[in-house]
């Protein structure tokens, strides 16, 4: 069995289906690993780059989000990938439309620079906001935002590039500008500053379908008190399992495999379940 969870004897609560008692107990004492499709947005389109570069259009935000919701996505992440670069914000319409019919948590990121920006995103339908570039420029902003809106609303977003065997550098502006910051140390600091969750994206892996940077995730997830969402590199369902079992991620985000229809969400969740990883299978999920 994979070695996750507490080292204590599991508390037996409620009924478990006979024959699967151990797994059911396992499921019961920690909550499910979240599977989160990530939509990189430019203007009205969802795009998919590689190494956070280039702008191939892969779909319509509303269409993709709706499909993922009905397939059983646990959350959605919308990233406006040009907001910091162009100095503008553009997700409000997309969020408003999404929240009419999609009733799972929505995280919105890209170019968030002020409390007013956060307020606008939340009003439009976001539940959480992801902040990267501005947090690097002004770390106090994270604390301000957490105090104003609650830590659970503030996701610290890190774009990490490997610079040597065991070191990564943090980048901003959609993986474009070096910061000189040690990404792992910065991640921990974001939690200290008040972020209630971390989104950790590997620039090296993202878009390549070669698997997550589990080394990176593992340096962060077990060492912070906030949940960590692993992002960047998913190509096979085994990759998502590795992010959880090796990287110790609390949630896995993916884009390529969903936008290019390599896997459906139920297929991914089934594969995770087979690895002993608890996932949520909603009653109304359309199976493949």
């Amino acid at each position: 069995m994979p070695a996750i969870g507490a080292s204590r004897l599991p508390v037996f609560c409620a009924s478990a289906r006979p024959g699967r008692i151990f797994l059911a107990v396992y499921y019961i004492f920690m909550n499910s690993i979240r599977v989160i499709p990530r939509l990189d947005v430019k203007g009205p389109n969802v795009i998919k780059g590689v190494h956070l570069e280039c702008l191939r259009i892969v779909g319509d935000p509303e269409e993709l989000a709706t499909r993922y919701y009905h397939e059983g996505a646990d959350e959605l992440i919308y990233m406006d990938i040009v907001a910091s670069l162009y100095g503008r914000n553009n997700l409000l319409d997309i969020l408003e439309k999404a929240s009419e019919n999609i009733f799972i948590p929505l995280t919105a990121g890209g170019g968030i620079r002020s409390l007013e920006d956060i307020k606008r995103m939340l009003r439009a339908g976001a539940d959480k906001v992801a902040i990267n570039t501005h947090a690097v420029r002004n770390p106090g902003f994270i604390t301000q935002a957490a105090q104003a809106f609650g830590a659970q609303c503030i996701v610290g977003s890190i774009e990490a590039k490997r610079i040597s065997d065991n070191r990564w550098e943090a980048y901003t502006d959609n993986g474009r500008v070096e910061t000189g910051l040690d990404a792992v140390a910065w991640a921990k600091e974001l939690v200290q500053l008040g972020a209630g969750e971390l989104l950790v994206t590997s620039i090296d892996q993202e878009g390549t379908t070669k698997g997550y940077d589990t080394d990176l995730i593992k340096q962060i997830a077990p060492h912070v008190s906030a949940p960590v969402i692993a992002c960047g590199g998913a190509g096979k369902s085994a990759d998502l399992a590795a992010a959880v079992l090796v990287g110790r991620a609390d949630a896995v985000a993916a884009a390529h495999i969903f936008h290019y229809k390599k896997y459906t969400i139920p297929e991914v969740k089934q594969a995770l379940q087979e690895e002993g990883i608890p996932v949520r299978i909603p009653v109304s999920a359309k199976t493949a």
Partner: protein
Amino acid sequence: MKKKILIIDYGFGNLFGLQKALTHAGANAGISENPCDMQSADALVLPGVGAFGGGMAEMKKRGFKQPILDQVAAGKPLLGICLGMQFLFEKSYEFGEHEGLGILEGEVKKIPVTAGSQCKIPHIGWNALLAPGKGGVFASKLLAGIKPHSQTYFVHSYAGYPSRTDDIQANTCYYDSVFPAVVARKNAFGVQFHPEKSGETGITLLRNFLSLS
């Protein structure tokens, strides 16, 4: 005739997603900062995200506290969500000691974390609703049509514990801790999770609430 649901706006919480979910569930859902508007509503929803002390202070400041107690005493259904559920209790120990609405007997305490466990606080994510008794089913009408082990979305660090176990309609289990996920007493209901963010399970719960109104 659509049920008229009033979402209480005391400055805390993301109300717009909630309004859309209630609308989707079939309500005529409105948001109001004015306690007087509660009178004409069929049912009330008390949302909340943030800290207990600050939330209660705002509620009092905006003149909601007594009117809510009056409406509930008069039989109007009230659904407290997340922090809103915690307000139903007598007191909370979040950042000090704060008085709640006292509609339910019991207290709000931090989710206990065993030293050395991997348990992360806040409790964020999907978790299963568990039937409290030995019967293995949900008795509450609020949970009609929802099977035990259905998952809903939680985001919280504190949990409300009713003194009367009869008030507990569903639990959830997070690492070593078991705490209530759904509480109810007569016409006052509380859910620790966010039904407006819990997919179709959440929508079902909201529909149930409407039918109770």
